[in-house]
């Protein structure tokens, strides 16, 4: 194991590796693993894997929970806060700037045409994300259970006007009462 990192080097590492990747959390997780575990040796691979598994159980953006957990592991509370800020502030600023220009340009005809195409692609991306989220459950032995719960949630949301949060709570209760046999 390498030496315990200073708060400044922790901040630098998360600014550099948690903000640069396109294409979502799993790509960034791979980048962070290489930078923090393989190159800097701040964490053992097993510890990183445990924090990653717990991050997936944490509500919200898994990547930010991963960074917070790693920061806490390395430098306690201050490490957690600094890792979370370093991982979320730079990319949020970029998003705010891009959103600002998006609003300015939305009056322009050429920009409107381009946005039209980009938004159509976003619909496709959203649909694929549904599959990415549920794929592991459909590939397990419990695919029928996954199909019933996922399909049920879809149908209820489309047909009836029920707030999504109630459907999620109902799914949690159903999951508790109807446990999948461990595979």
């Amino acid at each position, binding site marked *: 194991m390498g030496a315990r990192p200073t708060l400044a080097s922790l901040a630098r590492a998360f600014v550099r590796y948690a903000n640069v990747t396109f294409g979502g959390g799993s790509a960034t997780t791979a980048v962070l693993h290489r930078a923090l575990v393989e190159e800097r040796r701040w964490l053992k691979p097993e510890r990183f894997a445990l924090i990653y598994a717990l991050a997936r159980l944490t509500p919200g953006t898994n990547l930010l929970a991963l960074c917070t957990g790693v920061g806490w592991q390395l430098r306690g509370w201050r490490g957690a806060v600094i890792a979370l800020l370093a991982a979320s502030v730079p990319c949020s600023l970029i998003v*705010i700037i891009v959103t600002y220009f998006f609003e300015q340009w939305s009056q322009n005809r050429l920009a409107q045409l381009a946005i039209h195409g980009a938004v159509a692609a976003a619909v496709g991306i959203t649909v694929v994300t549904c599959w990415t989220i549920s794929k592991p459950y459909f590939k397990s032995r419990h695919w029928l259970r996954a199909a019933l719960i996922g399909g049920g949630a879809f149908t209820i949301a489309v047909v009836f006007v029920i707030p999504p949060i109630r459907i999620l709570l109902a799914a949690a209760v159903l999951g508790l009462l109807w446990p999948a046999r461990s595979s």
Partner: protein
Amino acid sequence: MNTALLYLVLLKATLTSFAGLASLPVVHEELVVQRHVLSDEKLNEAVVITRSTPGPVGLYVVSVGYFAGGVSGAIAGWLAMITPAFLILPLLRFAAGRAEHPRARSALHAVVVASAGLLLAAAVPLGLSALTSPVTVLIALVTVGLMLLTKVDTLWIIVGAALTTLTLSSVTPLLSL
């Protein structure tokens, strides 16, 4: 919209989801359907913006916050995005051994699968507002194909889609997009 209320609404969405875009159904229900502070188009644009900038997909709530309430709204969105991350600390300290408990895992699986179903349901109104011509339908289908079959970065898919509608409209002005 009041910034504190916007924060609470977005927090409700991020706290009840376990992946970047999985919070979309709650955001759609609260801000588009109930409170009318956002249109389907704007919500779509927020997804496009965060898919074409670096960082996690969950960043779209920052963009949603900006559309709903300017810079202070964006800060509310950022806070709503980062608040749930702290929940990993009690998990890391106390619950490491219990995460594998069969019933806890089963409940989590059910929530994840239901959230995927809800996300698909939220894509229906987004699709109805965005897919208004054969070209846009084709773009959505090609996007699905590219994402499932290749490892092309979503940034390039979005850039390609934008260039497609841009060039097609200049080549064939009659084509209504």
